[in-house]
Structure formats: structure tokens, C-alpha cells
């Protein structure tokens, strides 16, 4: 069986790749994808801990299912927002959408 550490390495790596993408990309779609990466890294954590530490319980599984559902809804909403934004300012660059400041 693969040791838990390897899986945690994988999820940490995924999390920080997602983080990096979120902070550096200017394209909103890419940022959304980065957010998905972060969410999936959390999912992996849940599943791994459930499997390795409490194999008789199901909470981790349910949480990850729950997160997948949330992620789907969030993607739908985010894409709707992005489309509206594009209609208004003809761009999906986050730097372009900086009207809401002081």
C-alpha cells in the first residue's frame, strides 16, 4: 500500500500549484481552474485521511462528495459572472475589472 506521506505530498503540491495559479494568472478562467485544483487537493486529503486513519467511517467520503457538488455550483456561478463581465468590459482579464476600488 502507498504510504500516507506520498499522498499528502501530492495534495500539498496540488494545493500550492493551485495557489500559484490563482495569484499569478490574469485570465479568470485559468484562475477558476486553479481554484478547482485547490479544492481537489482538499478532496484528496479528506479521502486519504479517511482511508488511512478511520477506515470504518465515511465522513471524509461524504465531505469530498459535498465539496465536489459545491465546486460544480461554484464553477457555474463563476462562469456566469465571467461571461457577464466579458460582455461589459470585453475582456476576462482580472486587472481590467478594477472598478470597485476606493
Amino acid at each position, binding site marked *: 500500500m502507498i504510504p500516507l506521506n506520498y499522498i499528502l505530498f501530492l495534495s500539498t503540491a496540488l494545493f500550492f500549484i493551485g495557489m500559484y495559479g490563482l495569484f499569478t494568472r490574469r485570465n479568470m478562467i485559468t484562475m477558476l481552474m486553479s481554484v478547482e485544483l485547490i479544492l481537489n487537493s482538499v478532496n484528496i486529503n479528506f479521502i486519504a485521511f479517511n482511508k488511512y486513519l478511520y477506515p470504518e467511517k465515511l465522513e471524509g467520503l461524504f465531505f469530498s462528495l459535498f465539496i465536489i457538488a459545491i465546486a460544480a455550483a461554484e464553477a457555474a456561478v463563476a462562469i456566469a459572472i465571467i461571461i457577464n463581465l466579458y460582455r461589459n468590459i470585453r475582456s476576462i482579464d482580472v*486587472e481590467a475589472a*478594477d472598478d470597485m476600488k476606493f
Partner: protein
Amino acid sequence: MISRNYLSTALIPGLPFLGFVILGLFGRKYIKRFSGGTAAILVFLSTAMALLTAWDYFSGVGPTDTNSHPIDVGDITWLPLGSNLSVHMNFLLDSLSLMMIVVVTVISLMVHLFSIGYMKGEARNPAYYAFLGLFTFSMLGLVMSSDLLQMYIFWELVGCSSYLLIGFYYDRPTAVAAAKKAFIVTRFADLGLLIGILILCYQARTGEYHKPTLDIRELVYVLTHTTPSGLFLGFPLISWGLLLVFMGGAGKSALFPLHIWLPDAMEGPTPVSALIHAATMVVAGVFLVARLYPLYAEATDVSRIIEYAGAISALLAAIIACTQTDIKRVLAYSTMSQIGYMMFALGTAPDTNWQGYTAALFHLFTHAFFKALLFLCAGVIIHFVHSNEMKDMGGMRKMLPLAHVCFLVACLAIAGIPPFAGFFSKEEILLAAWNSSKLIYAIALFTSGLTAFYMFRLYFSIFWNKPATGHRHKLPFVMSRPLIILALGTVFVGFIPFSRLMVYAQYPDADPHESIGLNAIPPVLIALLGIAIAARLYYKENDRPAKWAQSIRGVYTLAYRKFYIDELYLFVTKKIIFNLMGRPAAWIDRHIVDGFMNGLAIATARISATIKGIQSGKVQDYAWFFFIGIAGLAVLFIYIVT
């Protein structure tokens, strides 16, 4: 008296208030043309109810009657202030308040009727009648109050409606100034009233029940049954409280030296002057002192002050009235003089066993009739001549016969010629003065001569002086009837056995011993002398008045300029108060108070300018802050807290 529910008497002030609400809310849009009629009908109902209640109350009164006692209409605890003090809303019916109710409703009804004719065609009629309704309501509430704080509330409402009505013609700068002056002067006096009320309320603590009280009857009972305790500047605290209460009354009743607002208040419509500034509101101070009369009877020093304040006002106002040329101003000063009479009659309290009390209230009652009549006649004349100045009038006896007769009746009454109403009440006052102090009696006697003189100066200047010209001018029904009713009142109300009704009902051991005998001769003689001098000077147009004025030029100018009291007030306020207190206060306000606030605003603006860059509008910056925050919290919880 048969016990019955008196709750319906709450309608007496309630109906005029209803009129105020209806006319105030809907008058301008829906009932513009009938606003006068609506108000008059409501006040008529209120008057009818007041007269019925008074008849019911007084019909059983007599020296042997012990059944008539004050009636509580309905007691509501309005503001419970802790365990032992609460403010009540209650209407109290006793002989004093019923007498005032009758005066207020009857005069108010007459003025409402008269106004329908007088104010015809006025664009702001609904507002006018709404204000009149508000005034009637508050005045009735004031006289029916059984709680000092409740009375104070109505007292201020009365001042407010008086302000509104003086300034009714708000496009005239003089009217606006007069309204402001009246409000500020009476407000200043009311400060004393409020402090006085609080002192009395607090003093009741030393009494039988060991708790402060605002209820008038309880207060009077408690404070007359305790020895005064607590001194301030050598006088008992109760005396200070009573003096401050009297100060409030003096402001409202235009007593020297707080009288300066009353002559200016004549800028209001003439019917308003008749109602508020002659018959009802200005006697509120007399009413207030009468309400607390047993207390004043015990506080000898305060009574002396009241006596002299009243006598000085009476004399001063009478002298000024002899020189004024605006007929409404003459009447205003005569009002002030007559209120001075009432006040010094009340001030004789320690020397006369209730005699001054009944005399003052009797004079209040009769004065309301003849002074309202004088003002309404003046209204007719002004309506006709379109001027307030005496020189524009003269020889009007043929043109306005009804006003002529009514004016003559009222003048005879105020001069104290038998058998008109003023004679009886003035006799009683002079009797009380005689029993109290000879100096006061002398002043009163001299003033009554002056009264006769200036009233007949007015009468002869308006109706004689010049040859009678013009033809008969017919008055509208609504204007002539009030004159006739008030004239009948002026002739007959003197015959009411007043002191019996007023005192025995509540204080059976009081002895007002009224008796009119030989003592009636000097006042009548001196009044006749005054009339004779006035007739000699003003019966026909001649140069005698000018010559006489020339011969006593110094005194004449002094009186014509109202003894420079207005100028003195202006000097004190403008030069002393404004410069010594107003300017430093303004400086502190502008530089320190405003400076502090402006400093706060500037500091806030600076800080926000420096930190507003954080709010960049870039999503990823926010994400960074969020991430750093989370990381910081994580560090905090993992390494520091646990």
C-alpha cells in the same frame, strides 16, 4: 352633588383639539370655505358642555354646602419616575378651574364667531382657526390640570399657540419680530417656572408623606402643613420656589419688568388679541398664583413682592396708556394695568383672609368680558378705518352705532362706574388693598382714575372729537352678535355672587367678607374725575391735549417712550449680554467646539487617504491579504495559542 361620571368633561378641551387636528390636516384642501364654521361649531359644543358642567357644579354651592368638592375627571399615571414620584395626567374640576373654563370657552366662542366676519377672505383661514383651536385646547388643559408638570406642558403649548397667532401675518417683519419677542420673553420666564416647580416638588419631601409630589392639591396640603426647612441666601427654599413660579406667571401675565412683549403682541389679528392677549392667556399667571394661593398666603415675603410687582405694573401701564396713539396698544397697556390689579390683589394674601383671592378672580372674570368686548369693538373700528392710529378716527358714532354703544359700556365697566361689571370687582380689589396696605390702596386709587381717563380718551377720540360724518355701516350678523352678547355680559356679570361660589365650595372656613358701602365712593368719584378730564380734552377737537402734553413735557415723553424699558432691554441684551457672553461663547463655539469636530474630520480624512491604497480593486491583491491572514491565523493557533 349626585355622583356621576365626569369623563365626558374631557371633551371640553377635546373638541377644540379635534378642530385643530381636522383643520390642520384637511383644512387647506377640503374645508377651506367652512373652516370658520367648523371651528365655531366645535367650540360651541365645548362651551355648551362647559356651561352645563359649571351650572351642575355651582347650583348646589352655598355656605352650608359641604358636598361640592373637587372632582377628578380621570387619572392616568403618565410617567412613573421611580417608586415614589410619578407624573399624572388628570383633569381637575373645582370652582377655580370651572370659572376659568367658562371664561375661556365663552370668550373663545365669541372670538371664533367674530373671526368669521373679521377674517373673511383671508387666504390662510384654516390655519388661523386651527391655531385658535390649539390655543383653546391648551388653555383649557392648563386650567384643568391637576398636576404641576401637566400644567407646565399646557403652559408651553399656550405660549406656542400664542407665538403662532401673533406671527400669523408672517409676511410682515414687525409681526415676526413681535412673535419672536413674545416667545423669548415668556420662555425666559418659564425657565423660572420650571425651576420653581422642581423646587416645590422636592420640598414636599419634608412633608407628611416623605415623598416628592407634583400633584397640586397634595402639594398645597403638604407644604402648608410643614414648617419650611432649608435656607438659600437667607430665605426658605419654599419661598424661592414660589418666587420662581411667580416669575413664570409674571412673564405670561406681562407684569413689570417682563411686560415688554405684550404691546408688540398686538401685531396679531385683532380677534386673537381679544382672546389671547386680553382675556385668557395673559391671566394664566394670575390663575397660577391663585392655584397655589394657600402657599402664597403663608409665604409673606413672596406675597409682598407680588403685591408690589402688581401695583407697579398697574401704575406704569396706566401712565403709558395715557400717551399711546395706537388704539390696540392703549388696550394692551390697559390689559397690563388690569392684570397688575389682579396680581396685587392676590399679593394681599397674608393680610386678607381669601378676600384678595376672590377679588382677583372676580376681576379676572369681569375683565375677560369687557376687555374682549373692547378688543372686538377695536376690531370693528380697525376693520372699518384700516388703521390703528387714533388720529385717523373720530366722529364715528353715526357710522358704527353698535360698536359705539358697546365700547361705551365696556369703558364704563373698566372705569368702575356702577352698575357695570368692573365696578364690583374693582371695589373688592380696592377693599383688599385697603386692608393690606395704604400705599397700595393709594396707587390703586390713582391708577383707577388714570384708567378712566385713558379709556375715555380713547372713547372720545374714536367716536367724538370730530363732527359725526358718514352714514350707518351695517355689521354682519356674526360680528354684531358677539358684541351684543359680551356687552350684556359686561352689564350683568357683576351681579354674580362670586366670592360665595368661589370660596365656600372648597374652603368653608374662609371669610372673604365682601361688602360694598361707603368705601365705594372715592373710586367712583376719582373715575368720574378721570372721565371729566378726558371729556374736556378730547370731546371736541382742540389744542388743549397738545398744550397739556407740552406743560408736562418731560413726563409725557418718558411715558410716550414707555419709560425706555424696551431700550433698556435692548441695551442689556445687545451691549452687555451679546458682547460679554455671546461673543466669547461664539468664539469658543467656532474655534474650540467646531475646531475639535473639524480636527476629527481632517484626521479621519488623512488616515483614510493613506490607507485607501489597500482597496485596490484587484481581486488577486485581496486574495493575497486573505491568504496572509489565514497563514497568520494558522501560525497563531499552531505555535502560539496551543
